[in-house]
């Protein structure tokens, strides 16, 4: 499944080469979590990227990832909604293929066979167009669909197309065999199981399915009265198989059917010596003295039946105790905690904590625990419990955010005040005025060529020179109003001085203009630094996120509501577990009562035989 997702869920090219875009970095960060099978984290990555606008033009890619990650976590309705929202025209052929694959898995899980058929048809057409092989999971789903519709020949042909190295082939074969058997096609089912047994590979799941197939074939042979065949099949079942006890019980029954009491007794004794109350061992308690009946003296047989009777009676009492306990919510809660803390139920019952074993009493729970319903409940409870723990930490997290936000708001205010009090803003205004003045002067110089008039000369002159010019002009004006005979020489002297000043200014004009430009540039740089400082302070002040209080209140409310729902769901699972346990205990009790009844009948018969033997003596 993993490899398939790599091909169809996303682009698996590891090549990086060039620096990646922000969108690609974001997407591949989600992949990093995905490849580690941390689907919740990957989904949050994608949701954050979408909300932060970091998906660029890759909407379809992100949507497919979002839907797939949701699907992986069992958010089936949401996944379907996401996939439905992907616009068809935005899809490339490969995207279409990926989308169809996701939809097929979704419909298969929902057992929506009509829609599955439609999607599989599209998917297979797309695979054909893209010249890709049919993926084993697609073949598995298709075979499942056809099997459920009774199209066994077509289903078989599709399973034939799955590679022998694919675990999906083992699953498909097993399900196919079961379906054939249930439909009354025992011989064909046996053939399918035989093919399954011949599959190569050492993967745990394949080995397990091979053994299940072998056991199922043994049952079929026994049902068909092919007892020797059944024995041969069971002989080949590995002794370490998890189905060993079931196989032994079947073997024992076969031996009884064939009146091979010695063999049957050995088998039942082997099982019985294991202790515990798994179905095969419960049966062995009855089977062993029954087998002895055919070959031992009645007193010994009676003693064994009586031992079994006592054990059955005691076990019925134990079951009653457990049934009573399973009506107690606190006890079921403890049981669930013990089961959930034992690691994956599927990974091995041996991992279960001692507490779970102690609570349920003896080994009764072993078979019960391995049932799919119980595993699902325990898995869901574990998930919900983790959710509840996280939700429980949210208020503290939000408190911290609130403190940070409050401090940031205070700091923003402090910065705003500091900026106003520092005089930096006034300084910047003064600099800007000076810059404007320099600009005006430079513009004036550029607009008029050197002319010996007052305005030009004053625009170029330094303050000292301007004062001299003004003084000379005033003198000239005064002299002009006096009789020329008295002032002529002096006026000439004033004009010469003005002329000298003009030539000095005209000569130095380019240099002075350049100085103006230079001063302007220096001022620009200084002003930019002041503006940058002011900008930084203002940004820092403005970075306080507005509306945090409202957001925090909303998140608190959401966390509270969700906590309530999660706790209710946890409670539902515990009730369901209690119900399942009650139901299982009731079934167990019924079975043990049956055995007890048969044992008591046998005791009565054995007692009669003994009495008759006594009488005859």
């Amino acid at each position, binding site marked *: 499944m993993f490899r398939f997702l790599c091909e169809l869920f996303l682009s698996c090219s590891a090549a990086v080469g060039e620096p990646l875009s922000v969108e690609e970095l974001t997407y591949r960060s989600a992949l990093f979590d995905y490849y580690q099978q941390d689907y919740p984290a990957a989904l949050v990555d994608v949701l954050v990227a979408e909300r932060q606008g970091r998906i660029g033009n890759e909407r379809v890619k992100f949507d497919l990832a979002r839907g797939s990650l949701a699907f992986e976590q069992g958010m089936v309705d949401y996944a379907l909604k996401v996939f439905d929202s992907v616009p068809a025209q935005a899809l490339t052929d490969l995207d279409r293929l990926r989308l169809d694959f996701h939809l097929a898995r979704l419909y298969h899980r929902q057992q929506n066979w009509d829609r599955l058929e439609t999607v599989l048809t599209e998917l297979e057409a797309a695979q054909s167009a893209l010249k890709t092989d049919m993926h084993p999971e697609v073949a598995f789903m298709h075979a499942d669909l056809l099997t459920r519709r009774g199209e066994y020949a077509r289903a078989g042909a599709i399973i034939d197309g799955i590679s022998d190295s694919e675990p999906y082939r083992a699953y498909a074969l097993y399900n196919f065999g079961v379906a054939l058997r249930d439909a009354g096609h025992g011989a064909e089912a046996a053939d399918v199981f035989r093919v399954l047994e011949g599959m190569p590979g050492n993967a745990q799941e394949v080995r397990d399915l091979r053994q299940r197939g072998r056991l199922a074939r043994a049952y079929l042979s026994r049902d068909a009265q092919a007892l020797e065949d059944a024995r041969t099949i069971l002989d080949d079942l590995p002794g370490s198989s998890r189905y060993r006890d079931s196989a032994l019980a079947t073997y024992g029954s076969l031996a009884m059917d064939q009146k091979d009491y010695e063999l049957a007794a050995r088998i039942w004794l082997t099982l019985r010596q294991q202790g515990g109350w798994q179905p095969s061992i419960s049966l062995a308690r009855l089977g062993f003295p029954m087998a002895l009946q055919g070959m031992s003296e009645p007193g010994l047989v009676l003693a064994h039946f009586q031992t079994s009777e006592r054990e059955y009676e005691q076990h019925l009492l134990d079951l009653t105790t457990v049934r009573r306990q399973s009506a107690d919510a606190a006890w079921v809660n403890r049981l669930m905690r013990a089961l959930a803390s034992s690691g994956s139920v599927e990974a091995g019952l041996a991992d279960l904590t001692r507490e779970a074993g102690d609570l349920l009493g003896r080994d009764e729970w072993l078979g019960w625990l391995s049932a799919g319903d119980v595993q699902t409940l325990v898995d869901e409870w574990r998930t919900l419990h983790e959710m509840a723990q996280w939700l429980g930490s949210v208020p503290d997290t939000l408190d911290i955010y609130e403190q940070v936000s409050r401090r940031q708001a205070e700091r923003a205010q402090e910065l705003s005040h500091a900026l106003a009090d520092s005089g930096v803003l006034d300084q910047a205004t003064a600099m800007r005025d000076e810059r404007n003045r320099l600009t005006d002067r430079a513009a004036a110089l550029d607009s008029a060529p050197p002319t010996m008039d007052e305005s030009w000369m004053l625009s170029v002159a330094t303050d000292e020179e301007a004062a001299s010019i003004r003084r000379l002009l005033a003198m000239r004006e005064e002299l002009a109003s006096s009789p020329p005979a008295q002032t002529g020489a002096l006026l000439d002297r004033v004009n010469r001085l003005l002329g000298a000043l003009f030539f000095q200014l005209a000569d130095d004009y380019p240099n002075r203009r350049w100085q103006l430009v230079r001063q302007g540039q220096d001022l620009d740089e200084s002003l930019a630094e002041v503006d940058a400082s002011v900008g930084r302070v203002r940004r820092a002040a403005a970075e306080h996120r507005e509306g945090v209080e409202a957001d925090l209140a909303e998140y608190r409310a*959401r966390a509270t509501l969700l906590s309530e729902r999660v706790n209710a769901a946890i409670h539902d699972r515990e009730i369901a577990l209690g119900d399942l346990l009650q139901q299982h205990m009731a079934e167990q009790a019924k079975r043990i009562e049956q055995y007890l009844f048969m044992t008591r009948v046998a005791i009565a018969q054995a007692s009669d035989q003994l009495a008759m033997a006594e009488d005859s003596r």
Partner: protein
Amino acid sequence: MKQSVGVCLGSGRRAAAGLVVALLAVSSPVMAEDTSLAGDLGQMKLDMAELKRDLVILEEDLLFPASSQMSVYLAVDVGEFFQLDSVTLELNGKQIAHHLYTERQADALVRGGVQRVYLGNVKQGDNQLTAYFVGRGPEGRDFRRATSVDFEKAFEPTFIQLNIADATASHQPDFSATVVE
């Protein structure tokens, strides 16, 4: 050689369930899923994912504002000449992050995943980031290399990509650090 299923159905025989064997349930179809409570759980998971999303964004806004935010990503291209053990990051000569890689993480990188090694704050202006890579180089030898990047922090978030690539010509790993525009 693979065996064929080759189903040719004859007249069906319904199997008679034996008293003993019927007690031993081993033959239900496998890979069945979904429970009546699953839909409810799916909605709660979604609600929680959305709450997590909002908290992540709030946290970034509060703790790592754009004007000081810097994130460092690590990408691995092929990875034939280098097996990554750890990465250490220094910002302006001061260590800010150190990460030891599990096999699963290293594998996720080789398969195209990108890890955000660091998310934090950095001062505005000129900065230097140095990354030290430790692992196994060609022929399984211990390998330690560093790469640096100078960057000027502006008002927008800064993204830096560290890259480990195979230089096929020299049969050596190549390390680089780039500011993502």
